[in-house]
Structures are given as structure tokens and as C-alpha cells.
């Protein structure tokens, strides 16, 4: 209540300032006049009475000031004066102001931008009910390098039946389907999901409902749930529920529409369809193709759940030794699963941004310290004229606050732009990138950072500058303070150099990795290649024969198009492909210590595929049209396979067989390895078979690659037309050029490297400005001393050497510290590096050399300036 009264009175006084002033004037005047009248009644003349009245009252302006102080409005006045003065001082030294504001804006801007992404991706929980209890479950076996692998259908159903730790388990697998009987047939990104998926995630449909518990049985009616974006595409009808759509040639009833923010497991998913497996497929333990998630019961922790899964896994291994020996289950929190790959990248970028901010702050403190000294005389004078220490301190803090507010504001503007860029360029790289916004918490982060910057880096130099010894200040011209400050500034510059060095080494290592990545040969010619993805509707193309005949027809039609030089088909798009592996028996091969069957990738390809994409044949022969379904089974193998299993003998002529297929297949040729899954990874052993001899009827998809005479994208219409003329219901998807695929596959490392390189560039610039500024300032401060040395006969060379030695000492100290820190921190980058070790000596040496060179250039100019001092003038100025 008392506080309320004060606030009310303060607001009234502040907001109605002129009225308050007028009333105060009237009130005091009234007092003096009444007093005068009383004095006159006592017999004094009007002049004498007026004089006495005024004298007794005292200086009216001082009284007014005391009254204002009582109301608390004086603070506001002084602050305004301080601010006006601060802005005038900042305008008077534009170089100082520009450097300070820019470095702050960059530091704060970079942090806010990256923190927006970190906040969005890493800190915000997934949009499901109690997401902390959701886990991804993977199969794992030491014989497969203990990598998390998909789960077989039979294992999934056994897990679900036997597990008590999980409230519910759900399985899903990406299974694109064709939407036909519409104007423009298209491929839908469909997920096959167990009916329990939505209840496990705890998400409801926006319109209609999700799956009922028994809707994923083998002969349940075909139903589908569509995504919000597909619903909008289909006309946003509120009566969508109950309508039928044609998926892969079968009629499916729409039962629900999901809310717009539901994007499981990926944002581009169009529809969810029940995983209605036949009893035969349900019992399959060899095909590991399902992703599994589970919701932990409320009172169970992760360790207990993992222990229970171990028990279940060993029970299954005992019951089904052929398929489950050595197989276990691993649990990963769903949040980690979603952000797993992005986390180290984002944390690296955030660390870089924080380093940049630290450098900016050190730079600001450095500038403020220098400024404090050059203003020592001014401050000394103000103190001598009676300004209190608090008053001077406040003035200096207002100045740095003005810097911080302008710098922070610019940083915020910068980040508004930057977040837009992250949305655009991060699309597909950062999970849920499109939703990244500069949100409230992020803005708060920026504000807090600005405040911390001001408080620490404005206050310390301010306290320093305000602690002036008046007598010394005026008599020595501020030289004692200058010496002291120079030491502190030297330390700050060393810190700037050290931090910038850490950043530059990080950028160097990432850059080196990118160069390695870019110079990695993909193993095929990526230019002038158009790629399209075709998924066949199983209802139309049931058997291998039907599928392969269609693939063959497409190829022949496309090859006949004018401008098409060659064409081929493969089961997965090179450079961004999956690598499904199968178990093989080999004849006469070195199997290694165990008798375990060997794992190799299996890729059906068309006749002419190798020529079309430019993969050379190393040995043997290519597939021909004579390698028909009824002919002798043939295969090509890659070099890794040959080297690993037939290291000595010629692999051509050897035999292998798929464990499930049982037919012996002859190796007829040898091809080099290809970067099938992207430039970073080796593809391991691979077996190619001709499409005509494909034995997996579920493998009903292909990537068509067309080598064109001109720009590949110009051929899209013609190729689409050729396919439509064969089957008007066959959609094509993922239309792109192989060059674009290649660019996409390195987009993330490129993005990371460019950002870190930009951040390091700024850091280097700021650090160099710091180094330059320090020596320039030293020379200016020490002009008299240098003049004396010169007058006493020191040569110019000696002077320059003296200054260079002092300046470079600081640079080298900082550099040494930076190198040590970088050496200790480099390990963190490991997961982002490619083809370069974290402790890459050339990178460290190059960065150190660059620093020495740049710093030397920066200090040379001020050092040379010292030799141009005219001793007579300099000493006279004293």
C-alpha cells in the first residue's frame, strides 16, 4: 500500500512533470510572499522584507531540487542527462563506437540465431504425451557391429506380448504407396503402423479417429489416416471421414485427419496405414525391417526396462537359435533418437557462437578500459568539481549500457533475419526446421546476454576509471593508471587471441573435412543424370515377372526418347541410398573365424545401369539381356566383397547364394565400390543381381537414372510422359538430378563449416583489431618515453623491435593458450570430422602461422608510427 502510494506519486510527478513544476513554483512563492507580508506587518519596508524572506528561505532552486529528489523524479532527470552525454561521447569517437557495436551485434546475433535452433530442436520436448517415457527400441547384435538395427515382425510381437515394463509398444515402417484415381496420380509417403502407434504416442486425430486395436489384423478392412497437409490438398472437406481413396490400387476408407503439428516419424509423411501382416509375415524373424517405439510404465525406470528386454531377448535366442542367437534389444530415448545426429552439430555451432560473444565482450572491455584511461583527465576534473564516485560510475555505466542496447538491438534485428535463413537453409538438415522461430525465451536469452555483457564488461572498467586518485591524475597526466590498464588490456588481448585461435582451429578442422568430403570420388559420374523414383502398386504388379517386365518396358521407352544417351535402374538411389543387407553363403570363401553367414548389400540393377551411371567394369562381364529369369543366376560383386572374401583368387566364376533363396549364383564380374549411402560412408560388401532375376516380390520399387545430352531437368516431362503412356496410374517421385542428390548429401557439413568459418572470421577480425588497438594505444601513451629514448640515441630499428617484441609477446601467450585449449577440445569435434584427425598437426600449425602473420601485420603500422615521433615536439607537449 505504501509502495503503491510511492509509485502513484512518482508516476504522477513524472508523467505530469510540467504541472508538478508549476505547482511547486506556486507553493514556494506563496510561502515566501506570506512570510514577507508577516515581516512587513512587523514594520519592515517591502524591500527589506523581501530580502529577509528570500534569505531565510534559502536558494529556491536548490530547495526545488531537494523536493524533486523527495519525489524520486531527479533520478529520471539525471539519467536523461547521462544518456544525452553518453550518446554525445559515443558520437565523438565513431571508430570506437562502430567496432564495439558491431562486435556486440555479431556476438549476440549469432548466439540468438543458434540458440533459436538449439531451443527448438534440443530443449523443447517432443509434442507427444509425457515424451520422456517414450523410447525407441532397436535390435542389436555384436555380429553386426552392435549397430542399432530394425526389428523383425516376429520379435516385435513377442516383445509386445512378453514385456511388462512397457505400457504399450508400436511398430512402423516407411512404405510409400501410390494414390490413383485422382487427376494427377502421385506417390504418398505412407507409414505402415501397428494400430497401437497413436495410443503409444498419446495423440488423437483432429477429425475422425485413430486406429482401433484390432484394425491391424490381417483381414481387417483397409483404412487410412491422412496428414493435415494431405487433407488440405484434398480440399479440406469436413466430411472427409468415410470417403474412399485408391492406394496401390485398393480402396481405403479415410477414418481420420491428424493435427497439423503431428509429424511422426517425419514431417513429409502423408498417410498412415495399418500394418496388417499375414500370419506368415508375422512369424518372420529374418527380415528386420520394423522401427519400434514403446511407452514406459509410470513406475518403471529405463534400467529395469533394459534388464527385462535382456531377459526376453535371451529367451527368444534359446527358442530360435537360428535367427536370434546373439541378438539383443537396445533402448534409446525418443528425443535423442529424433535429434541424435543434429545434437553435436548444433552444440558445436552454439559453442562457436559463445566463443564469438566472449571475444566480443573481451573486445568491448578492452575498448572501454582504453577509453577510461584516455578520459582519466576528464573524470579527474569532474571529481575535482565535486561529482561523487557513484555519479561518475553511473555515467560510465550509462555509456556502456547505451552501447549494449544499440548492439543488442542490432543483434536482435540480425537474428530476425538469421532465423529466416536457418529456416530456409536448415530445411531437411535440422529436424522440424520450418517451425524455428525467434520465440519469447530466445528473445529473453538475448536480453539476459546483453545485460550480462553490460554488467560485467561495462562495470569493471567503470569501477576502474572511477577509482581515480585526483592528485596523481592531475599531476601525472594519467600515466600511472595507463601503465596499470595496459597490463589488463594485454591480458584481454591475449584472451581474445586465444579464443579466436580455438575457433579458427575448429573451423580449420571442419574445413579440412569438407575438402576431403568434396574431393571424395563418388564412384560414378553424377553430371547429366536425371533420377526418378518409382514405387509399383502391388495390386497391379504382383509377381516378380510382372514387376520386372514393367521396369524393362519403362527403360526401353525412355532410352528411345530424343536426347537420352543412356538409362538404367537400381533398387536404391545412389549417394542417398539405403543398404539393405542379406545373409549369403559363399563357395570357397574365407569366412573368417566363425562360421557365421556373411552379410552383404543386395541391389537389383537393370541391364545397362553400370554404363548409364559410369561405373566401370574391373573384371568379367556386364549383365546382358540374356540373363533372363529362366537363365543361369548371375551376380556382380564390388571390390570390398572380393577383397574380403576372395582376397587371393579371382572372384569371377565363384558362387554365392542367398540364405533364403537357396539357388547358387555365379559371380560374373567385379566392379569398384560406390559411395552408395553418401560420401561419408563406405558401402561394405555388395552383390548386384539383374532385375530379371530378382526373387523378392516385395522389392517393388526402382530408381530410374537417365543420362541426358542437355540439362537433365528439361527431360522430366518427356520421361514422365513415357511412363504414363505405359501406365497412367504410375506416379513418379523424388525427381531430381544426381548432382543435386550429391549436393544434398553434403549440405549439412557444408552448412556447419560455412557457419563456423564465418564465426571464426569475425573472431579473427575482432582479435586483430584488439591487437592493433593495444599497440596503437601504447605508442600514443608512451610517446614522451619513446621520444626520450630517441633523443638519447636509440635507433628506429631498436624502437620498432622493442614495441614489436612487447606486442607479439601477448599475441604468442594468447596463441599458446589457445592452441592448448584447442588441443584439449578437438576431441569433441570427432563425430563431425571426415578424413582428418582431431589433432591434425598441419591444421594447428597453419592456424598458429596465420595468427602470427596477421598479428604482425597489425602491429607493424603502429610500431613504425613510433619512429616518426619528433622528439622535440613530443617533449615540448609535456
Amino acid at each position, binding site marked *: *500500500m505504501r509502495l503503491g502510494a510511492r509509485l502513484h506519486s512518482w508516476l504522477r510527478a513524472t508523467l505530469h512533470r510540467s504541472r508538478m513544476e508549476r505547482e511547486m513554483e506556486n*507553493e514556494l512563492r*506563496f510561502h515566501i510572499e506570506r512570510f514577507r507580508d508577516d515581516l512587513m506587518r512587523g514594520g519592515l519596508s517591502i524591500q527589506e522584507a523581501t530580502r529577509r524572506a528570500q534569505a531565510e528561505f534559502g536558494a529556491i532552486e536548490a530547495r526545488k531540487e531537494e523536493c524533486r529528489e523527495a519525489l524520486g523524479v531527479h533520478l529520471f532527470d539525471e539519467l536523461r542527462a547521462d544518456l544525452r552525454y553518453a550518446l554525445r561521447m559515443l558520437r565523438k569517437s565513431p571508430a570506437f563506437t562502430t567496432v564495439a557495436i558491431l562486435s556486440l551485434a555479431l556476438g549476440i546475433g549469432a548466439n540468438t540465431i543458434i540458440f533459436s535452433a538449439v531451443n527448438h530442436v534440443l530443449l523443447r520436448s517432443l509434442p507427444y504425451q509425457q515424451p520422456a517415457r517414450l523410447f525407441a527400441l532397436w535390435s542389436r547384435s555384436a555380429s553386426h557391429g552392435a549397430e542399432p538395427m530394425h526389428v523383425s515382425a516376429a520379435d516385435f510381437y513377442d516383445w509386445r506380448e512378453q514385456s511388462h515394463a512397457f505400457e504399450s509398444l508400436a511398430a512402423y515402417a516407411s512404405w510409400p504407396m501410390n494414390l490413383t484415381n485422382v487427376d494427377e496420380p502421385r506417390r504418398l509417403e505412407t507409414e505402415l503402423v501397428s494400430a497401437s502407434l497413436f495410443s503409444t504416442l498419446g495423440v488423437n486425430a483432429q477429425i475422425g479417429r485413430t486406429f482401433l486395436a484390432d484394425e491391424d489384423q490381417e483381414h481387417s478392412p483397409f483404412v487410412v489416416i491422412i496428414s493435415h497437409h494431405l487433407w488440405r490438398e484434398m480440399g479440406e472437406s469436413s466430411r472427409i471421414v468415410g470417403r474412399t481413396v485408391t492406394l496401390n490400387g485398393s480402396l481405403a476408407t479415410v477414418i481420420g485427419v491428424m493435427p497439423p503439428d503431428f509429424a511422426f516419424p517425419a514431417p513429409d509423411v502423408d498417410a498412415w496405414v495399418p500394418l496388417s501382416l499375414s500370419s506368415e509375415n508375422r512369424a518372420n524373424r529374418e527380415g528386420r525391417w520394423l522401427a519400434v517405439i514403446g511407452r514406459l510404465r509410470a513406475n518403471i525406470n529405463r534400467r529395469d526396462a533394459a534388464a527385462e528386454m535382456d531377459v526376453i531377448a535371451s529367451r527368444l535366442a534359446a527358442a530360435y537359435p537360428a535367427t536370434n542367437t546373439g541378438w539383443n534389444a537396445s533402448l534409446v530415448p525418443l528425443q535423442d533418437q529424433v535429434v541424435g545426429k543434429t545434437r553435436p552439430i548444433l552444440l558445436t555451432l552454439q559453442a562457436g557462437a559463445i566463443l564469438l560473444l566472449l571475444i566480443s565482450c573481451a573486445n568491448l572491455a578492452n575498448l572501454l578500459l582504453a577509453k577510461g584511461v584516455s578520459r582519466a583527465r576528464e573524470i579527474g576534473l569532474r571529481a575535482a568539481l565535486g561529482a561523487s564516485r557513484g555519479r561518475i560510475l553511473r555515467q560510465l555505466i550509462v555509456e556502456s549500457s547505451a552501447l549494449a542496447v544499440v548492439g543488442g538491438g542490432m543483434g536482435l534485428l540480425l537474428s530476425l533475419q538469421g532465423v529466416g535463413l536457418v529456416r530456409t537453409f536448415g530445411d531437411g538438415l535440422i529436424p522440424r526446421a520450418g517451425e524455428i522461430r525467434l520465440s519469447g525465451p530466445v528473445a529473453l536469452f538475448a536480453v539476459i546476454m546483453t545485460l550480462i555483457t553490460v554488467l560485467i564488461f561495462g562495470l569493471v572498467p567503470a569501477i576502474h576509471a572511477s577509482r581515480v586518485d585526483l592528485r596523481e591524475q592531475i599531476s601525472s597526466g594519467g600515466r600511472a593508471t595507463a601503465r596499470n590498464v595496459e597490463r589488463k588490456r594485454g591480458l584481454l588481448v591475449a584472451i581474445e587471441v586465444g579464443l579466436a585461435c580455438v575457433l579458427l582451429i575448429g573451423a580449420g578442422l571442419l574445413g579440412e573435412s569438407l575438402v576431403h568430403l568434396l574431393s571424395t570420388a563418388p564412384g560414378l559420374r553424377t553430371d547429366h543424370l536425371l533420377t526418378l523414383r518409382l514405387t509399383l502398386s502391388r495390386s497391379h504388379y504382383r509377381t516378380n515377372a510382372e514387376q520386372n517386365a514393367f521396369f524393362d518396358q519403362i527403360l526401353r521407352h525412355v532410352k528411345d526418347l530424343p536426347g537420352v544417351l543412356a538409362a538404367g535402374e537400381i533398387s536404391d538411389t545412389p549417394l542417398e541410398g539405403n543398404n539393405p543387407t542379406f545373409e549369403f553363403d559363399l563357395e570357397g570363401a574365407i569366412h573368417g573365424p566363425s562360421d557365421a553367414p556373411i552379410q552383404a548389400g543386395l541391389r537389383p540393377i537393370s541391364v545397362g545401369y553400370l554404363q548409364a551411371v559410369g561405373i566401370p567394369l574391373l573384371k568379367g562381364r556386364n549383365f546382358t539381356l540374356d540373363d533372363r529369369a529362366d537363365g543361369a543366376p548371375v551376380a556382380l560383386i564390388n571390390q570390398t566383397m572380393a577383397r574380403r572374401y576372395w582376397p587371393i583368387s579371382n572372384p569371377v566364376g565363384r558362387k554365392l547364394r542367398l540364405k533364403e533363396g537357396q539357388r547358387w549364383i555365379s559371380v560374373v564380374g567385379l566392379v569398384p565400390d560406390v559411395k552408395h549411402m553418401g560420401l561419408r560412408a563406405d558401402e561394405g560388401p555388395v552383390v548386384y543381381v539383374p532385375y530379371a532375376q530378382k526373387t523378392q516380390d516385395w522389392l517393388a520399387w526402382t530408381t530410374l537414372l537417365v543420362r541426358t545430352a542437355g540439362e537433365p531437368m528439361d527431360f522430366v516431362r518427356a520421361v514422365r510422359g513415357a511412363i504414363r503412356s505405359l501406365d497412367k496410374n504410375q506416379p513418379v517421385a523424388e525427381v531430381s538430378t544426381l548432382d543435386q542428390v550429391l549436393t544434398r548429401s553434403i549440405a549439412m557439413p557444408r552448412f556447419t563449416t560455412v557457419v563456423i568459418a564465418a564465426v571464426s572470421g569475425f573472431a579473427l577480425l575482432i582479435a586483430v583489431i584488439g591487437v592493433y588497438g593495444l599497440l596503437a594505444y601504447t605508442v600514443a601513451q608512451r610517446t614522451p618515453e619513446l621520444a626520450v629514448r630517441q633523443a638519447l640515441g636509440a635507433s628506429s630499428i631498436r624502437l620498432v623491435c622493442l614495441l614489436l617484441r612487447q606486442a607479439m609477446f601477448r599475441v604468442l601467450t594468447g596463441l599458446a593458450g589457445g592452441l592448448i585449449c584447442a588441443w584439449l577440445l578437438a576431441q569433441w569435434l570427432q563425430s563431425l570430422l571426415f578424413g582428418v584427425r582431431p589433432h591434425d598437426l598441419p591444421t594447428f600449425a597453419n592456424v598458429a602461422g596465420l595468427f602470427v602473420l596477421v598479428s604482425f601485420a597489425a602491429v607493424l603500422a603502429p610500431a613504425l608510427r613510433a619512429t616518426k615521433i619528433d622528439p622535440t615536439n613530443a617533449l615540448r607537449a609535456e
Partner: protein
Amino acid sequence: MSGHMDLLQGTLDMLILKAVSLGPLHGYGVLLRIQQISGDRLEIQQGSLYPALYRLEHQGLIASEWGESENKRKAKYYRLTAAGRRQLQQERRNWNRMADIIADILNTAAEEL
């Protein structure tokens, strides 16, 4: 020790509250009333009166409004608020207790210890 006495530090606020508790007064009136009640024994710095009035009003202990003075001129009149009344009672109690304690100490003779 007759004649004027200077005001004890920190007591002006209390005296102002007392003065306006007897009825609304303008600033000059407050001065006159304190001098009158004290029988002209207290000397108050005229200049220090107004900052004190402003401070008390700022704290919500007194309130002001413009009115007409005895000689038909506009003047700002102060009156005690409810919070001010409580504050005055509190200060009076404190003052009396303090005065008793001080008096006891000053009147103590050596044999009483």
C-alpha cells in the same frame, strides 16, 4: 538555555505529521503552527520544510489539495492520511519510550548501579 533550540535530527517529519493532524494546513501554516505550539522555542529551517512535505506526501502519509487561503489566495493544503495517522501514533509511542529510557539513563546516580 532559554531562546531557540535547533530541531533534533529526524524529528521534523513527526512534528509535521502532528501539525497537520490538528487540521489541514499549507506549508507556511505548518511552520507557524509548529512555532506556535512550541512557544517559539524551536527554530525550523524554512527551506527544509518543503522537501520534508514532499517526502511525506510521496510516502502517502499526507495528502494535498489546492484550496483558498485566509487572504483569498490559492494555496496547497496538506492533511493527514490514515497511513499518516498510524505512523504518527507509532512515532509518538517510540518517542516516548526513547525519551523515558534516555531520561532514566541520564538520571542514574552512581549508588544505583
